[in-house]
């Protein structure tokens, strides 16, 4: 069986809705693959040990640490990065809220922060500030002190909840 242990692995996956086929080094993490091979530099490698959250991307519907997943493990996966989520418009309101509230300074944490926040927002409802803080507690930001980020996420949650309520009411 040893013949299938390899130091370079073939993978086929979709990234931001586009099919990708590649041969990746066995130890390469998914963020290096996205950045170095696909030129998707939105998500960042920062701590590379799963603590800072700068590499947060969406894999098969879940927000995950891109640095704690090997590219080889992404075979068959559906991967979304901030670039793809921008193109589809899925997080346009969240991005606009981040800009309006200045919920970013250097912007290095922002792509990961947006993916993490969108996971919470996608659950619907209006999370409390405490729930927002807790959900983002694995995403490090040294610049803002977090309050502006919480404000932006809270504003989007309320706007989306309001829009959903209105839709529900209008349809009745």
């Amino acid at each position, binding site marked *: 069986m040893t013949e299938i242990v390899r130091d370079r692995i073939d993978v086929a996956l979709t990234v931001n809705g586009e099919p990708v086929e590649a041969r990746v080094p066995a130890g390469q993490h998914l963020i290096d693959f996205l950045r170095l091979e696909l030129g998707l530099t939105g998500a960042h490698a920062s701590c590379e040990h799963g603590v800072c959250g700068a590499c947060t991307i969406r894999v098969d519907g879940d*927000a995950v640490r891109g640095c704690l997943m090997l590219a080889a493990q992404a075979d068959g996966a559906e991967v979304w990065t901030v670039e793809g989520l921008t193109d589809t418009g899925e997080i346009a309101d969240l991005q606009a809220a981040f800009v309006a509230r200045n919920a970013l300074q250097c912007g290095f944490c922002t792509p990961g922060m947006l993916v993490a926040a969108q996971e919470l927002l996608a659950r619907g409802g209006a999370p409390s500030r405490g729930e927002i803080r807790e959900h983002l*507690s694995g995403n490090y930001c040294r610049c803002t002190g977090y309050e502006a980020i919480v404000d932006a996420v809270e504003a989007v949650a309320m706007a989306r909840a309001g829009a959903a309520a209105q839709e529900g009411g209008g349809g009745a």
Partner: protein
Amino acid sequence: MKAAVGGYARARDLRHALELLSSADGMGRVLAGGQSLVAALNMRLTTGDILVDISALADCRGVADDGGTLRIGALTRHAEIGRDPLVRAHAPLLAEAVGHIAHAAIRNRGTIGGAIAHADPAAEFPACALALGAVMRVEGLDGPRDIPVEAFFRDTFETALAEGEILTAISVPKAAPGEVQVIQEVARRSGDYALAGLCLVRRAGRHRLALFSTGPKPMLATAAMAALDGGDTEAAISALKAEIDPPSDTQASGAYRRHLAGVLLRRAVARIEGGTR
């Protein structure tokens, strides 16, 4: 920080995974959720490993009702355990513990089997398994065997898993009527490893108390359990402090951890007796 691994193979099924491990000349490492292993690889704390990726083994994922027990597949992810109705109904300790484990993105990929096989003495799930009296289902090329949790954890990052074996499921007894399960811990920040923590289960008037982050492995505080069975909380706290010997590190001294364990036990007892904390 770039990993230097010896190779990678994706297992098609359990048998395949076991064969891959056995042919790896002792360099085989089971890769499941990867939330601890890939960090260690990136930091080059371990190099040259032959990674056997079992994450696609569907049989090892999910929660099943086995009558008197819940069978939790080793590849069941933390987030799945946190929201699983069977777990919430029959092993609420595990569901509560999920809220203490790292952060949302980690919980989306980390697996209970990985956490238990990794045997980090500061991790929540090993102590939960101990408090619940879980049984570990382990598969090898020679077939399966069951290991009671009391015999599973041997030392820091060391378990009864033999070379070439894979943890495939964890069975926990369903909570009895009136059973109470609580987890208490103090961490510096949300999601950090606990400075000290404990799981307390009261089942039919008997107590099981498992400590984490207070020694080289999760441990049952048997003297404290006996005192709790006798209804003497203060004696249990004294017994607990006497039977643990926590380590010191850059976050806290052993003496602080010992003190904290006592505080946590008092709070856990208050909770199972209907208090608020």
